[in-house]
């Protein structure tokens, strides 16, 4: 597979403030990459370097094998969907969508045809063509913005949180739409979002950023179950992080002790450990849905004793909070059934399977 | 009326502002509104309240200069009277204002003589009994003693002459010889193209040009005579560098040599520069052409309004304005210097002051000049002026 986008050690500072501190990233043809990270971590800045609105201080950006240094935005095979959509208020929907084609001196009949196709692809009504952007709803404007970005068949579609302003329901609809588009058009998407859930749903790979650097790049499952650290693990959903002490590293894994955990062998396989963990304190991650209530007598790879303190329904699932004798709070999520396995005040054992845990070092 | 947005500025700028028509009276739209208020019969008089520390108040409509503190202060103190000024910017404008209702407010007016005389038929002026003024007339030059015909309306005296001067070419003797200006011919000389300055002062530049064309503008004119005037104005515009409404601009041009001569002004323009020491700037009067005198004598006069509520004070102030002491101040102001009608003032002049005023020349000028009056066809001539100016571009 060829890399459509290849970013190597890109750095960018605004005055003394370093917005990108050496970012390297390689994106494959046809891939859907999600860039996630808290606000201000440099996501938009990275997109700007790719789109060519700004030039990085150092580093290299190549698109389809061509070095982009000195190539202006207008000449790059990229197209951006802006956070605020940036539809031209003085142009009709048809003029907005046809604008990139007009700039490429496409003839009018061809523009009309392609705009028609885009309208269809975006499932917009034909009567909207003569309307102005402000006469459309938020979702419709979104589709027009997407249509404008895709009409010129870019190699790389850059989306800067285009869904962040929409209400939850519409967001879900458009997320599905994006996924559908990506499949049907086959363009490479680099989609910025601060919503990891959205990234999980849409992306082939997720790139988690923080403070101008990439923390982790991997599949949604990697990010979810094998996060590079507590920051990534806490970024999506809820998670249980239990302090452990690593007493020994062996070739096959490591040996650990933990106050609250009753483990059968006290060992963890090497593939369940994030790279840099050394001897000493570390964190053991257990996703809430991977804990289950052990009926009396039953055993598991590992178990934690705890007392249920809180309980609330979450639609299809029920979530519990429980406290270990050491004072650690745990979140447990189990599918909602008619008979509840535990009640507030119950003293229970929560079991887990060894392959479901993940260990990483304690970060600053 | 004495306080306005520009009254705190230096005198120089105030003059510029007035010259540019930016002062109250000059702003056309305001003028229009005032006019409309007048036609609608709306009188605003009495609405404005004046400070009233003094025993009595009066309003004096006059040219700038008549309000000089050196003239007014002694009178104010002696009579315990507060005087408000309504400064005239152009004489027709002042007249129009009085007609529009200001006559109810104003007690005394000093303006150009024809306009003072016109207050008579307009029913605005109090007729004067020359006998009441025998004391002031006693020291007047004979020429201005009653019966002074131009100030008579149906035989009745309307006002007292105060200050006077002559209209003729104003030139810089370093650049041109006065002898050349024995007629207005140099105005039309091709060699002087772009060197002639024309005062943008209504009828003032038109009248001498008519005289040059052999037409007496003070007579009723027929179509032929008006066409002759048109021709001479057209020829004048050919050589005109600029029209100037601002005295200082014309003075500067004469001094720096960018202007060879100014038409439509006279001693009124040159004297202030002479006072500053530039004795090379003079106002001459051309010699009679085919028996028609080419110069024009302008006279300013002072009249009392019929509606005045202070007839005695107004008379006192009039007499004060033409007095020996006031006359001396009035004839040697900073903005302009002009001879006055009171012969007694001459005794106060130093030789230098006589030179500034071209006092040795004044009777020569008088002899070669027409007395300025209302020209019967001035409407037509001004219309022609506008037309020719529009065509001159």
């Amino acid at each position, binding site marked *: 597979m060829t890399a459509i986008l290849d970013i190597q050690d890109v750095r960018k500072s605004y005055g003394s403030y370093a917005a990108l501190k050496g970012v390297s990233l390689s994106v494959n043809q046809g891939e859907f990459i999600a860039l996630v990270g808290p606000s201000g971590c440099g996501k938009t800045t990275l997109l700007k370097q790719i789109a*060519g*609105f700004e030039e990085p201080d150092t580093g290299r950006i190549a698109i389809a094998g061509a070095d982009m240094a000195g190539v*202006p*935005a*207008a*000449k790059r095979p*990229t*197209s*951006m969907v*802006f*956070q605020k959509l*940036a539809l*031209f*208020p*003085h142009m009709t929907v048809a003029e907005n969508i046809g*604008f*990139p084609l007009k*700039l*490429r001196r496409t003839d009018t009949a061809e523009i009309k045809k392609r705009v028609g196709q885009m309208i269809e692809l975006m499932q917009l009504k034909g009567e909207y063509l003569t309307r*102005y952007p*402000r006469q459309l709803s938020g979702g419709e404007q979104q589709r027009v913005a997407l249509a*404008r970005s895709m009409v*010129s068949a870019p190699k790389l579609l850059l989306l800067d949180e285009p869904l962040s302003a929409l209400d939850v329901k519409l967001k879900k609809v458009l997320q599905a739409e994006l996924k559908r588009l990506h499949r049907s058009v086959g363009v490479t998407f680099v989609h910025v979002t601060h919503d990891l859930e959205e990234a999980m749903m849409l992306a082939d790979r997720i790139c988690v950023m923080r403070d101008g650097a990439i923390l982790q790049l991997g599949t949604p499952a990697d990010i979810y179950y094998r996060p590079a650290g507590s920051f990534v693990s806490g970024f999506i959903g809820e998670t249980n992080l239990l302090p452990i002490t690593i007493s020994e590293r062996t070739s096959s894994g490591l040996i650990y002790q933990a106050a609250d955990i009753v483990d059968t062998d006290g060992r963890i396989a090497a593939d369940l450990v994030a790279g840099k963990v050394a001897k000493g304190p570390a964190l053991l991650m257990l996703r809430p849905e991977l804990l289950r209530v052990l009926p009396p007598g039953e055993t598991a790879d590992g178990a934690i004793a705890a007392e249920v303190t809180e309980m609330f329904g979450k639609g299809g699932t029920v979530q519990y909070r429980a406290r270990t004798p050491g004072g650690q709070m745990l979140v447990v999520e189990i599918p909602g059934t008619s008979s509840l396995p535990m009640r507030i005040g119950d003293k229970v054992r929560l079991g887990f399977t060894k392959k479901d845990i993940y260990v990483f070092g304690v970060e600053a | 009326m004495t306080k306005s947005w520009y009254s705190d500025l230096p005198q120089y*700028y105030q003059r*510029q*502002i007035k010259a*540019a*028509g*930016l002062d109250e009276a*000059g702003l*056309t739209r305001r*003028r*229009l509104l005032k*006019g*409309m208020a007048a*036609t609608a019969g709306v009188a605003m008089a009495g609405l404005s309240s004046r400070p009233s520390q003094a025993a009595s108040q009066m309003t004096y409509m006059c040219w700038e200069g008549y309000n000089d503190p050196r003239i007014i202060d002694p009178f104010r103190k002696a009579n315990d009277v507060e005087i408000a000024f309504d400064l005239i910017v*152009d004489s027709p404008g002042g*007249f*129009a204002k009085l*007609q529009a209702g200001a006559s109810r407010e104003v007690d005394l007016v000093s303006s150009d003589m024809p306009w003072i005389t016109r207050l008579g038929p*307009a029913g605005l002026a109090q007729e004067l009994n020359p006998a009441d003024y025998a004391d002031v007339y006693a020291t007047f030059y004979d020429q201005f003693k009653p019966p002074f015909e131009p100030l008579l309306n149906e035989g009745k005296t309307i006002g007292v002459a105060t200050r006077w001067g002559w209209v003729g070419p104003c030139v810089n003797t370093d650049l041109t010889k006065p002898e050349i200006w024995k007629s207005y011919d140099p105005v039309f000389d091709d060699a002087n193209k772009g060197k002639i300055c024309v005062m*943008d002062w209504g*009828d003032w530049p038109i009248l001498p040009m008519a005289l040059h064309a052999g037409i007496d503008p003070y007579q009723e004119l027929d179509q032929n005579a008006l066409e002759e005037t048109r021709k001479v104005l057209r020829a004048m*515009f050919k050589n005109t*560098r*600029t*029209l100037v409404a601002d005295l200082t*601009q014309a003075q500067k041009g004469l001094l*720096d040599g*960018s202007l060879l001569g100014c038409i439509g002004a006279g001693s009124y323009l040159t004297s202030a520069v002479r006072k500053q020491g530039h004795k090379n700037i003079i106002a001459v009067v051309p010699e009679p052409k085919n028996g028609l005198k080419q110069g024009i004598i302008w006279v300013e006069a002072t009249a009392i309004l019929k509606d005045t509520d202070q007839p005695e004070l107004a008379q006192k102030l009039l007499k004060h304005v033409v007095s020996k002491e006031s006359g001396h101040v009035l004839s040697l102001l900073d903005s302009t210097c002009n001879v006055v009608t009171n012969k007694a003032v001459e005794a106060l002049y130093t030789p230098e002051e006589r030179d500034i005023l071209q006092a040795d020349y004044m009777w020569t000028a008088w002899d070669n000049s027409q007395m300025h009056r*209302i020209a019967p066809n*001035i*409407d037509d001539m001004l219309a022609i002026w*506008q*037309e020719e*100016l*529009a*065509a*001159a*571009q």
Partner: protein
Amino acid sequence: MADEVPRSWRDPDLLIKALPTVLLQTTCFLAPLVMTFLLTFQRSRNFQLQWSWDLWTWTDVFSKPHYWTILGHTIFMAAATVAICLIIAFPIAYGLATRFKAWENEIKVLITFAFITDATLKIYGWALFLDKNGMANYALSSIGLPPEMVAFLYTDWATLLGMVYSLSAFAIFTLYLSISNIDRSLILAAYDAGAGKFRAHWEVTLPLCKPGIWAGSVLIFLLSVGAFLEPKVLGGGKSPMSAELIRQTFETRVNWPLGAALTLVLMVVSVFIVLLFSRLIGLKRAGLAA
């Protein structure tokens, strides 16, 4: 719905409430206009108004070509001033709005100062500067250039210079507001769509500046039409514009009916041109007017 009072012009309550506004409007705006109009049916003879109630004034206005020559010249000068002001103001306003964002407040203060400093003094300053023996010529000849190089004082060029000088601040101000209101991402979107700098200006920045262009143009046009200081002081009064013609008519000729008629003609023609201009730049189409 039941307790909703039907509001009609018959409603006495509404009438009373609207009365002050209506009165103010009529007295301040309508009444002077009507009076001006009525005035045009009178005559002036020997500086005195005569209630003749005839069409003498209007006959004069429509039979003398020079009023229209001056009006045409005025419109031309005003249009030229608008055009030059816009051309000068656009890059300045653009620079201020984009490059110098950091000094936004200082810039606004400066522009305000440009508005409030006295025009009279500035115009006289220019006259002194451009004069035959003025500073411009002095400076040029002192660096060895031939004397009197700057010789356009007392021409229409000098008038134009003065008007552009005193009015361009309005264009800078309105354009500055317009440009700084344009979302930067719209420009980026244009680049992204493949537009070069020039094309992005032409297709996006310029159309989005229309409200500013419109406001600036109308302001400058109306102020230029009313200009009298510049043609007088810098133009040498030889090529008068309508405002000067009207002033002359009112003050020197003391012909109020004619002055009123000329004022009305100027007003009507100006309003007509402004409307035409709005149509021309298509302010309505993009719905940018509001």
